[in-house]
């Protein structure tokens, strides 16, 4: 066993909890410690660290939409410096295999929060240009960690890179998504990072518009 992040062999002490149920690990304790799980307390709706019942972001979204198309977002890690490096390595330098390091945590999060609720998994798509540069879709990569079937029912028009826009621009830009078939009732959107929640909500509002009843999201990172 080697760690997918630092590429060193994983040395794990045998204890009562694993000596008869050996586990195949993809991340070592040291790297796992450097990643930061989203701390408590956080907004129950979008997992932004806050002591409030509902965070300011979510309140603003409700003002914007009247009724927020996104019921809930679940994220796993914070966007700390180490994670920023990893995401750069993953998305911009093409280290696709790195996602295996998060296999266990993504599966655990899914099993704890979304299992057996008939969610259809829909990864957030990339535009064609972006896809041909990157050669893979990071959201889809994360979705493949789950063993559920993936529904590719969204496409995307390339626009300016999200990360180069201001918050105001992101929130009010035109919806870049199109839908290819009638959406299922319950949808779980998958993406790598939830920053303002605009992308997810653009997809969610389109899906709702076309007949989806419930849209939630699972993202690796809440920045």
């Amino acid at each position, binding site marked *: *066993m080697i760690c997918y992040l630092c590429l060193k062999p994983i040395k*794990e*002490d*045998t204890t009562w909890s694993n*000596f008869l149920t050996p586990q195949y690990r993809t991340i070592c304790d040291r790297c796992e410690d450097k990643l930061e799980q989203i701390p408590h307390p956080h907004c129950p709706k979008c997992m932004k660290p806050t002591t409030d019942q509902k965070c300011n972001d979510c309140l603003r979204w409700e003002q914007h939409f009247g009724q927020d198309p996104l019921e809930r977002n679940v994220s796993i890690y914070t966007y700390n410096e180490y994670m920023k490096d990893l995401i750069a390595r993953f998305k911009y330098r093409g280290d696709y295999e790195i996602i295996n390091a998060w296999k266990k945590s993504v599966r655990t999060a899914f099993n704890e929060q979304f299992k057996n609720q008939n969610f259809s998994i829909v990864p957030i798509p990339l535009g064609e240009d972006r896809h041909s540069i990157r050669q893979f879709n990071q959201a889809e990569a994360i979705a493949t960690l789950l063993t559920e079937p993936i529904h590719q029912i969204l496409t995307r028009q390339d626009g300016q890179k999200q990360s180069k826009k201001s918050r105001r621009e992101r929130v009010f830009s035109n919806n870049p998504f199109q839908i290819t078939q009638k959406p299922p009732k319950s949808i779980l959107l998958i993406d790598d990072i939830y920053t303002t929640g605009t992308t997810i909500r653009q997809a969610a509002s389109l899906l709702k518009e076309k007949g989806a009843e419930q849209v939630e999201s699972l993202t690796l990172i809440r920045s």
Partner: protein
Amino acid sequence: MIGLVMFVLCIYLFFSYLKHQQLLLALSIFLYIISTLHSPKIDDLFMTQSEQHYEGEVRVVSDINVTDYYTQYTLELENEYRVQVRLNDSSHLLKYGSICNFQGQITPPQPATNPGQFDYSEFLKKQGVIGLSYDPKISDCHSASIWSHLFSVRHFLVEQLESQYTDQTNAWLKALIFGDRSYISSEVLDAFQFWNISHLLAISGLHVGFFIAFLYVILHYVFKLPNEYIKWLIIAILPFYIVIAGANPPVLRAGFMALIILLASMFHKKLDTTDVISIVLILILWFDPYLVYQLAFQFSFIVTLSLVLSKNFLKQDHWLLISLKVSLISQLAILPIQFNHFYFTNVLSFLANLIFVPYYTFFAIPVSLLLVVAVVLPRNVANLIETLYLNVQEAVHAMVVRFGEPQLAIWVVGEVSLITVIAFYLLLLLMMRAWSLNQLKKAALFGSLAISVFFIEQYAPFFDSTYKITMLDVGQAEAIVVELPNRRGVFIVDVGEEVIYPFDGDHDRNYTSIIKPYLWSNGIRQIDALFISHFDFDHVASAQLLIDEFSPTYIFSHPFIEEQDYLDDESMEQLIPIYEGVNLELAGAKLFVLAPEKSNEFLSKSENERSNVLILQYDGHQTLFTGDTYESVELDVARKYNLSEVDLLKVAHHGSDTSSNEKFLNAVGAEVAIISAGRNNRYNHPTPLVYERLLSEGYEVYRTDKHGAITIEIDGGQGTIKPFMP
């Protein structure tokens, strides 16, 4: 059965490892098969004859072992069977590994003849030993193995210490440095065993750790060697240390574990500790497969493994909490084995560990090591340390002995079945798993369930409707245990000891090695009534011990007791005299006392004739107890009472011709007669004439000298006789 469980476990592991570790899996299965072939089969070890003459070459496979009575060696015959040899003459030393000529008689060791009794024959077989030989002729020894030099070093060191220190100090040093505890008083050993701290007297991880630390300090600070050299030196010295320290299972385990960890660190490898344990286990068993049967070996490995697996929740805590956890985990891990060997566990042993582990760690062991080194110091300095050491040691251990064996601490469960053992370990596994995942509530739940498995075992007799009468094989003496159905009551008739010539000072052998183990193995801790037929040594000698430990509600005997020193005043006060005409009802059983008559004529009669003769009736089944009574009383009883309903007869006076009159035997309606008599006893009991008489009167006769303990089980009106040796 155990094989089946192992097989299921293998299948399970097979599937969980299938995905990732094929090589490891293949290796495990290979080793499993090899080990099944390699393990010795105890059942195949037996001598075909009761005595055998042997002449031929033998190999010495043990170091000399000197006891108070004899010098002992283990020899290996040409057919690879081992024999234990006892020599009266300790002068000529046999060297380890040497080949000698052997000429002598070999006899098989005495097997157990009672349920619950320690089986010496089995114990020796588990070391590969099939026979004993007393003072054989051993000659022409040659080609000793190189290991014998190590034993010579050991003897040399022991001699140096013997010349320097007193015997008392040497007894401790031999135990704590050389792994030989045979010089420590049995009082202390028993107390240590009782409090579950005898692991401190076995050279184990603690001692090996100290030795290594000690070496390190000397090499580092005195010789100022670099770390790399020190490690190599320690690796080189450790094997010698293991032999000098006695090479017992715990020191083998600890020594080899240290060796492997050090070796791995020389190549900058860090091995998982559980892997190290496994490697050491496989290595040791490869060289001596018999070790797997040894209690010390089982305890050492099970405790070490369970502590290593627990290390994630053993660190970072208050030392007090850590030692409590360590005690708890160790005690739980070996609990079923403990019950099956000793029938009880000490629930307060963690307290003893709390006091004694630090004492041994910070005082006894380091100072013992210091004393060994102090041999080179001026005599008065060494002796000063010795005086200090000895005073503290003796005071501390006198304290343990004085604690005695408080009844409060003893939890008697008895022998446990395999199902119980499996259920316990499954639950223990779940408990430890929950604990290591910090799910404390779950851990507590599984822990309680694991313990309650033994309660089920303990209370099983309450659901058993068998009525049991057991005549124990106590040699030329008598002891009978009556167990009423559903544990309604337990009675004991007589608690005798054998009169042994020459008297060797041991007068509780029957009680400690047969009667008490029988009762404890059946989970009995308290009895309802003790009947003492009469006050002769072979019927009453250990009654006081039984009264002290099993606190009978009633004590009965005949009314003519004169001066005696078997029972103390308190017990004598409790004693209720019973005589002809007394009828009792106890726990649903009826007792009719038929003799002796309460008349002055018995004052002039012998103790034997004063024996209580009584009928015990339960659920229509009658047993006639006769003590050592004579035929005059028998005839009297037969004349006055109807004995035709009796189902079981305890033959009077060990089958002597003073008793068992023909008319009496004829009057008794029983078809089964039981006799307690010693093997080849000096009185020739049962007298052949009486034995013939019993047979010709149509009795089915069982005798302890031929059958061992005799158990009569009655269930649903149906009686079965189960002699221990069919």
